[in-house]
């Protein structure tokens, strides 16, 4: 094990800063899962096709199986673990729960992060825009319909919450 085989990097993940020593070939997904124990990010295909490993780097969705951890050095990463605040689910998570936007849940972190980016840019997307934004995420269980409904419902919840007094979780 030569020193030059490893690189020291600094990653900010969900607001916390971590120093990691990694091989250059360490995928960002593996650094998150194996080195930081953030196993919410799932690896499905490991070649950029399924979207289950989607995380945000500097606010932009990326496939964490197609990026090396060294490339995220000095950047800000957000994973599915960064969505909930305290014990409270993010409106997207709440909506996936209520609309049954998941069955086995394997694809869910990727869908949540992709939908999160969509709603950041476009708080009130049409069904077509939602389908287009989520076209790179594969779900083997739900048939997608409830996922689309969950994103619609989350966008309404967010819009409603900013227009009126926060109304809780709608329960």
């Amino acid at each position, binding site marked *: 094990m030569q020193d030059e085989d490893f690189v020291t990097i600094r990653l900010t993940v969900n607001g916390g800063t971590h120093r990691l020593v990694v091989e*250059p070939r360490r*995928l960002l997904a593996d650094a998150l899962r194996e080195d930081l124990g953030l196993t919410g990010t799932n690896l499905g295909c*490991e070649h950029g096709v399924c979207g289950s490993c989607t995380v945000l780097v500097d606010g932009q*969705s990326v496939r964490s199986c197609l990026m090396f951890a*060294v490339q995220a050095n000095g950047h800000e990463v957000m994973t599915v673990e960064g969505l909930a605040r305290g014990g409270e689910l993010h409106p997207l998570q709440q909506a996936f729960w209520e609309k049954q936007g998941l069955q086995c849940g394997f694809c869910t972190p990727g869908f949540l992060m992709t939908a999160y*980016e969509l709603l950041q840019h476009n708080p009130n997307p049409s069904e077509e825009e939602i389908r287009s934004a989520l*076209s790179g995420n594969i779900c083997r269980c739900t048939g997608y319909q409830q996922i689309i409904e969950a994103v619609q419902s989350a966008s309404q919840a967010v819009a409603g919450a900013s227009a009126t007094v926060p109304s809780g979780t709608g329960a």
Partner: protein
Amino acid sequence: MKPPKFRYFAPRSVEEAVALLVEHADEARVLAGGQSLVPLMNMRLAHPDMLVDINGISELAYVRPWDGGLALGAMTRDATLERDTTAAARLPLLVEAAHCVGHPAIRNRSTVGGSIAHADPAAELPAVLLALNAAFEVRSRSGSRTISAQDFFKGYLSTDLKASELLTELRVPGLPSKAGSAFVEFSRREGDYALAGVAAVITLDEDGTIADARLGLCSVGPAPVRPQAAEALLRGQHPGDEAWDAAATAVITGLDNPPSDIHGSADYRRHLASVLTKEALASAAERAERNR
């Protein structure tokens, strides 16, 4: 599926990157957006000994007006091009095609230079840049040279770029104000590689006949295709189904061995190329008419 070991360099300038490529031409590969190279490495279909990561070279990421058209830095992300207002005003065809590349999370990383240098025949931008008469600037230790798109694409995943050279800029000439353009493709699922795609540019004369027509096709051969026989047929014709039919026939006659795979046979791709050629031409002509 994990990538094999490699040595990693992240130069901060074009000079530094070129020096690394010159010194390690046999073992180094350039890492741009990584959306094609990293999957190949994960599957161990590519195993470079060394990666020169050019993501940190900020001087390579720009979209600038150039000679009525655009100059694009090689590290411009597809997501940036897709939202660029100068590009939308000057060369909407580029923006339309950039939007068809992969999915949003892919476009956030994938770069215009990477797409050109990788030269996947199914990729959109090579075909579009071929139709737009683009030229590419590459840098090496001895200086720079400019290669026309026509000379750049050599065959399946192969280009005129040498291992010791770095692609730095894409130059795309502007179109006459009376031109119209369109890109259409067909894929099984939005964002997947197209089974066929066609870019069309049409310029109309004062009298409404076709002054100039250009076409670029992806996914129908080992390299992007510029069907010049079909273009020649269109000049001087009146826009309309008759002209589009003749052009589409010329396009598929000129195709040599479209790929055949589980997604579509060669015959099916020929059929698609014909249908999409007509669609692209009709839509480009309609836009040209509006600009007249």
